[in-house]
Structures are given as C-alpha cells and as structure tokens.
C-alpha cells in the first residue's frame, strides 16, 4: 500500500509538471461547455469532451512509451501495477471535472472513458494507434448503426457502443480494456 501511495505522489508530480494533462482537461472542459451552450444540447458537447478525455487517458501512459519515460517509471515500480493504479486514480477526477455542467452520470461516463484510454494504452502502447482505436470505439461504432439493415443488429451495435446513456456497456468496455491492458503491462517486456 505504501507503494501505491508513493506512486500516487510521484504520478501527481509528473502530471502537474508538464502541461499535457492539465491542458487536456482544460480543453475538454472548455470544448464541452461551449458546444453545450452553442447547441443547447448537453449530449453534443460530451462528444467533444469524451474524445479529448479518451486521448488524455491514452497519453498519460502511452506518452511515456513515446518519450522513453516508461523506463524510469518501471525501474521505480518494477511490479508495475502501482504506477498504473496511480495513473487511473489521477485520471478519474480529472475526467469528471470536464462534465461539471452536465449530469452527474456524465462525470461517471467520462471517468470510464479516461480509463478506457488508459487500458487501451497499456494494451497497445503506441500512442497514436491506441488513441485511434479508442476513438474508433467511441465514434465509429455509432456511425455504423446507421448502416445496419437488420433492426436487431442495429440495436445490438447501438447498445454495444459506449455512450453516456449506457453506463453499464461503457463500464464493460473499460473493464475489458483495463484487464487486457493490465495483463499486457504486467507480463510483456518494456520498450
């Protein structure tokens, strides 16, 4: 447990000493709020916000693979999980803040999306690819619904896409990504 606490402290220092995460949260917040105000539709702003938050979730881990920073991180936490846990703990409030003008469930949703990004980054490592995959899950699945001729398929696809309306589905995606990502992170070699 002391490991986890130290990791949280270290990750907090990491997060606040470069602009990436604060900037992403600010961007998500401003983007979400302004789209909400412009369209008068809270769900529209969330589309923008979730993209930024998902990428922030990817960035916090995959960014370390790009800069090589993953090495010192792993040297500091050879068991690896404390670092992942600390990043997850940091992301959740950061994401939730974005939904400040929305319903409380949207805050939960954005938290899940941030973790979806984190899990995918642990699984895929390459930042751009991981971000592309998460954005695909978020945006491409819903665009496919329109093409599905069979109402049952369309309904299935619609229900299977993460969305603020389907917290359980979203949580399932996040859980799957985190599970696979954690296994990958714990077992595969770094670099």
């Amino acid at each position, binding site marked *: 447990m002391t490991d986890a606490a130290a990791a949280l402290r270290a990750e907090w220092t990491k997060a606040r000493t470069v602009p990436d995460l604060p900037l992403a949260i600010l961007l998500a917040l401003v983007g979400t709020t302004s789209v909400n105000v412009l369209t008068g*539709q809270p769900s529209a702003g969330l*589309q923008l916000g979730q993209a930024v938050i998902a990428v922030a979730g990817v960035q916090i881990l995959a960014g370390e693979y790009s800069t090589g920073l993953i090495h010192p991180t792993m040297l500091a936490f050879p068991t690896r999980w404390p670092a992942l846990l600390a990043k997850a703990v940091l992301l959740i409030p950061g994401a939730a803040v974005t939904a400040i003008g929305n319903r409380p469930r949207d805050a939960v949703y954005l938290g899940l999306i941030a973790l979806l990004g984190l899990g995918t980054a642990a699984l895929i490592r390459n930042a751009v690819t991981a971000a*592309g995959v998460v954005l695909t899950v978020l*945006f491409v699945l819903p*665009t496919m619904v329109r093409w*599905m001729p069979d109402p049952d398929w369309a309904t299935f696809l619609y229900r299977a896409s993460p969305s603020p309306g389907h917290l359980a589905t979203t949580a399932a995606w996040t859980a799957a990504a985190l599970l696979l990502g954690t296994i990958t992170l714990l077992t595969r070699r770094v670099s």
Partner: protein
Amino acid sequence: MIRAELTKLRTVRGWLFGLTAAVVLFVGSALLVAAGSHMSCGDQACPAPPVGPDGQAVEDHFGFAHRTLAGDGSLTAHVRDFSGIITYPPPRHDQIVEGLVPWAKAGLVIKDGTRPGSPYAAVMLTGSHGVRMQHDYVHDRAGGPTGARWLRLTRTGASVTAYASLDGKTWTTVGTVEMSGPAEIGFLIASPGDITVTENGLGGTSVQSRFTQASAVFDQITSTAGGEWRYDEVGGGGPGADWEKYHRPAGLEASAGRLTLTGSGDLAPVSGMAAVPYLAGTVPALLAVLIVAVLFITSEFRRGLIRTTLLASPARGHVLAAKAAVIGGVTFTVVLVAVVAARAWSTTVFRANGNIVLPTGALTDLRLAVGTAALLAVTAVLAYGLGVLLRRGLPAILLAVLLTVVPYLLATTSLLPPGAGEWLLRVTPAAGFAVQQTFPAYGHVLLPYTPAQGYFPLAPLAGLAIAAAWALGLLVLAVLRFRRADV
C-alpha cells in the same frame, strides 16, 4: 524523393498493417452489412422496381383512365374537384383525416402504354405545389397561372406541350417535351405516402410512410382521341390498403361528361430503398488511414529521423510535399482497390440474400468509387498536415478525428438538430462525405433529405472541394511553419 518516401512507408510493418487494416475494415464492413440485409416477399424473389427511361429505378403507380392516341391530338379538362384522405397523420396518429399530401397529383398524361416504367409526359394539379409539368419520373417544372384548374395536353409531331388556364379560354404554356410513337392519353390520379421521420431510439432516424388516397373529378372534357375511357391501375395489383377495402376502392366512375378518378401511388424516382451498402466501411477505414497518416510524419519527429531525411534532401518544402503525395497517393490507390472489391463482393452477397440491387448508373458508380478513394486520400493528407503542424501524434490524431469523423457522426445521428448537423457538413472537412451521396435529392419527391438518410447539403464535388481546401490549407500552413522551424 517520392521513391524514398514510398520505401519508408512500405518498409515499416506497422504502417503496412494499418493500410491493410483499412482495406479489411472497408471490405469487411461492407460484407457484414450486406450479409445482414435480408429481403423476402413470401416464397418468391422480391419484384424489382421498374426502371425508367433515364436508367434509374422508379415508382410508377397511379390510376389511369385512357384512350389510344394514334398521332397528333389533344386533351383538355377542368378539374372540378380534387380531394383526398391521409391515414393517421401526426402528431397523434389516431385518425384518418381529409386532405391532400403536397405531391398528390391529378391531371392529364400521355404515356407509352401502361407498362410500369414506360415514358410519359403529364400536366397536373398537385396537393400544394400548383400546376406542374412532369415527364419520365425525374423531370419536374412548375408553370401556369396560380389557381389554374384547367389543363390541356397537346401532341404535335414529336412534341408534347402542356397548358394551364384559369378560365378555359386563355391558356399559358407550362412546358414542352419530346415524346413520339403510339401512346395512351388520359387522366391520372396519384397520391404518395405521407412521410414522417421519427427518432429510432438508436441515435438515428427512421422514415415511415402512411397510406393516402386522392380523388379528382374532371369535367368539360374535350378529347381528340375517341372511344371508351379504359381504366388501369398502373403498377397496381398489391393487396390494397384497408381504406380501399372498406371505404373507397381505387378506380374510375364515369357519368354524364364527368370522370371521377380515385387512387394512390406516385410517378417518381424510387425513394426509401437502399443501394448496395458497399460504402459502409468508410469511417472504420478512415480511422485506420488517419492513424497511418499521422504516424507517417510524427514518428519521424519523435525518432529524430526527420534530421536524416532533411540531410538527404534539404529542400524542406519538397520533402513535405513528397511525403504528402505519397500518403495521399497510396491511400487513394489502396482505398480504390478496397471499394472495387467491396462493391463486387457485397453486391453478390446482397443479391443472394434476396435484396434488390437498384441500378445506380455507371457514372454514379464511378463517382462513388473514385470519390471515396479521394475522400480518404484527402483526409489522410489533412491528418498528415496536422501531424507536421503539431509534430506530436496524439493532438494530431485527436484533431483529425474531431474535424472529420465527429462532425459526420453528429450530423448523421440525432445528436444535433438537423440544421446544425447540415451546417457542420458544409464547413468542416466532413463535407467531403457528400461525394458518397448515391441518389440525388428530387424537389418533387417529399423525403427527409437529411445526412442521416444519406443526403448531404453540398453537391458531391463541392463537398470534396471543401475537404480538399482544408487539407491543402493545413498543408500550406504546415510547410510555411516547417520551413523556418528547428527540427
């Protein structure tokens, strides 16, 4: 230089994988959607809609009272009464009301027989669009004085001319079209279904059509063609709506110089039927392409490879242009192959499932294939430009998706009010999706011509031009900045 960049692209396994993934996603999605499309009409194959003179599938269903017209001739009549019913209209959908849908039609027509899909020329009174001259399903023009109730159709030689009049004495020409050969001349009645759009609960919309019927009384008839008025329900023969069974059947009543014609249907291009869904994989493939395009440049920045590249060819503008040409060209080629494969393959599957393959026309097919390849190529260049500009992969891919996929998603689902969605499809790079519109929007067919239904606010090439302008603009900006940047 282009050769060198091609080699770079070709020799990184991840990028090859990404491009392959784009193809697989494109073709796979098309197959999946085609495989999921089933159509059955009892135990027989579903009847294909008739094909009109211009090659597109048409609806040709109307009540027709006619005589044979051998050569020249003319028909004049006064529309004494034009009324109808609409079943269960919104908002409550609970009763049948009197009224005409906007494109209900009563008028005069010369038609090459009663075979559905055959050429015709007609002048008609409509529910709320005044007097129109229409011919061969897709052509429509307004004309005549406002409130005209008198209609005349004349054939002289190979031209058919339509007139309208307020009093039956002074006539205004509505239009003239070419049409020769033996024909039937007479009266038409048609009333298309009443359309409502509802949210389908899946983030999209669905279109419902409800039965309507129109009825017209023609009197003061002057016809040069002789004989009986024979009645046919062109393109009919279906089971008939409940209204027709229990209240008022379609048909013709003749009495003392008066004809009363009752019926439903339309003479128009087919609406509400989907083409082969071979473009279904566009957005998934686009995502794969965006990833490759962004990585193609940002990985050079990250690994310092850009220095090697610039040492080999110090003209920075040329280097960037060569890379853009490579990523655009490769994407275009790869996607074109994917479209052709998806089209061939999914058409087979689609047809095997009993679906009707609507004719789209060779030019449209070409536009869809080349246009889709161009759309993805342009978007790839745009993503690449963002990569050069931002130098970092994550913001680049994020912005690329926010500029292209997200507007498309917002516009084609019910997340935004339709006006806002269409606006997005005019100004963002997602405008390029207009190139994928399969069927044109017809002014004389009432349909929700919304992005959700596959109709875009811009013309295909105009939309593609907007996307290209974005890509080019970003690229120029990137080159300008990169020319004086430290690397």
